[in-house]
């Protein structure tokens, strides 16, 4: 199953490489990884999406917790949560294609953020599934370039991950 694990860790050089190293060393899979400092500059927040059965996920969370730099973590998929991913996508848009792309973009509530006579650059946020669906709808032949941020997530309601 796919899990989204959110990690608060010391904003120290080397901390990220310990997390990434742990995943490769123990053969855990990383679907996506995002990391940035938080409102508290001493802390970074890292979100990793990974796939594994319950035993693997249990080991992943335990091994992450064992890293000295990791302060706290939560498996967001254990409860109600919000997940978002940002995608920037360059799409061929010539002639009749232009309205077609625009319409698809509207349906998905994307925004066109850059335009040339031959292409649109679309910005889209949502769950990873939604971004996948948009890519499918546009079709591989029209896509020039895709960049995705990887998943960020947060728990629903009043639960917070903080120190």
């Amino acid at each position, binding site marked *: 199953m796919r899990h989204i694990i959110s990690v608060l860790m010391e904003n120290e*050089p080397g901390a990220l*490489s310990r997390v990434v190293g742990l995943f490769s060393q123990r053969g855990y899979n990383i679907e996506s990884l995002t990391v940035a400092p938080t409102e508290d500059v001493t802390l970074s927040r890292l979100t990793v999406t990974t796939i594994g059965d319950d035993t693997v996920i249990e080991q992943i969370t*335990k091994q992450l917790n064992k890293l*000295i730099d990791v302060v706290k973590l939560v498996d967001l998929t254990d409860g109600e949560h919000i997940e978002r991913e940002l995608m920037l996508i360059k799409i061929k848009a010539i002639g009749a294609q232009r309205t077609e792309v625009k319409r698809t973009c509207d349906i998905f509530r994307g925004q066109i953020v850059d335009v040339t006579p031959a292409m649109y650059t679309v910005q889209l946020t949502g769950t990873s599934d939604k971004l996948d669906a948009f890519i499918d709808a546009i079709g591989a032949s029209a896509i020039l370039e895709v960049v995705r941020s990887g998943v960020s997530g947060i728990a629903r309601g009043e639960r917070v991950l903080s120190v």
Partner: protein
Amino acid sequence: MGVTIARLPKLFTRRGSEVELLSGGEMIMRALKEEGVKIIFGYPGGAVLHIYDALYQQDAVEHILVRHEQAAVHAADGFARSTGEVGVSLVTSGPGATNAITGIATAYMDSIPLVVISGNVPSHLMGTDAFQETDMIGCCRPIVKHSFLVRSIAEIPSVMKKAFHIAKSGRPGPVVVDVPKDMTAPTEKRPFVYPETVKMRSYTPALKGHAGQIRKALDLLLEAKRPVIYAGGGVVLGNAAKELTAIAKRLGYPVTNTLMGLGAFPGSDDQFIGMLGMHGFYEANQAMHQADVIFAVGARFDDRVTNNPKKFCPNARIVHIDIDPASIQKTVQHIEVPLVGPVGPVLADMVEMLNQMAVEPDQNALSAWWETINGWREKHGLWTGDRFIRRDKIMPQDVIRTLYEVTKGEAFVCSDVGQHQMFAAQYYKYDQPRRWINSGGLGTMGFGLPAAMGVQLAHPDSPVAVVTGEGSIQMCIEELSTCTQYNMPVKIINLNNAALGMVKQWQDMQYGGRYAGSTYADSLPDFVKLAEAYGHVGMIVTDPSELKEKMEECFAMKDRVVFMDIYIDPDEHVYPMQIPTGSMKDMILSKTEPSN
């Protein structure tokens, strides 16, 4: 820019006492002193010269110059294993640091508390492929508990304090402190205040077990009809042998120890049913397999214990105490009562709670269980009956038994890796923890001699034996020179079978006796001459009848290094042996008893 103390205004702490100004090199030495470190093991080089100069100018910490950085780490490791204190080594950048890697990995696999200080090139050269530059933090990442790169001189005291704290608390392990050369320059002085305590929000190892879980554990233990206590290296590391023995005695349950746990429960006690696992005792592995309740204490269900984890002890309900939550349910999944905490306090709490409860183990079931176990022990136990009598050749098992007799079970036995290691684990009875020193997790050939140096320095008046093979001993043999320099009278018991015996055994059993790369009989050195070349005593033993006498002679030379080159039966295999992919109980008992 150089500043001298005289030109700087005096600094004061909040409490009004004067603050000293020290260079980074001096700070490192002072931090070691503050941590109570008396001995470090190291090897100099360009990147650590400032530190060595600071070392020269103090006398709280003695430095042992090894002959190879791998040995610097193994020696610190042996020191740590035999004392429970943090071992310290100091190595230079580049090749010094990479030479230390095997030692660090060895300590990591066995959770040994070490602080390894490595030099690095000056900060402004880092990342430029400078002379003798290695990304030590990157190289050692998967084999350390934690590592620090020193980024300012001022942080050295707090980095050192944290390094020691992390190394020895929780599940212990090696910590690397990588120090760029400019951080130790004698001209750059900063205020030195050594922190009294450490607080890290991201690191808070458990100090006690959960009372509810302890209760559950006891309830389950008391229900047992066929219990086994399976105790590992965590009991030794956690200084909990006394507590383990107390609860085992209180319950009257059989105890088996892992390779790393030998000595956690007295080896000569009747309740001890031997080591378990791949080359474990028949009775121990049978008991585990048939058990209805297993009490795992500071053990990690290593693959060399469980054999095929899917077939592991199918009927057992398991209680597992470990300081490391990640050890619980890592390989074996059916753990009924997980209990995270330091083994000593947890076991002490258990005994106390047990004394308050009015319930006792089922004595009828227990005596029937002991009868079964004693039956196994009589039939195939290694210590019952004389199983290895051969008069023409020296049997390796007899060498270890003789060692046990001659040293009256009181030696520190430091082993290398191979068949000799398994014999030393099987045939020496360890009545105390920290007497059996071996690389269990990584299985590092070359560990024995340097580790023994650390042990001997920590216990100058005790007999220290290196049980080794002619293969392993050649991997750190240069340390015979260190032994000369610092008068470390270790006794080397070389079980010479003229081959990489353990490899050869597998080739006998699984590769039709094709000895690919495992023999070298014609090119072995004359170990007696070699020992003598280093200023030591060498002895050859070829006749079984002279074994004991020669060994007595060896240990009588209390202040000499003695190298006993003992020619053993080269064809002997280590038994019993679990059948790969089988369950715990599936074992080969001898060359002629392929399976049971």
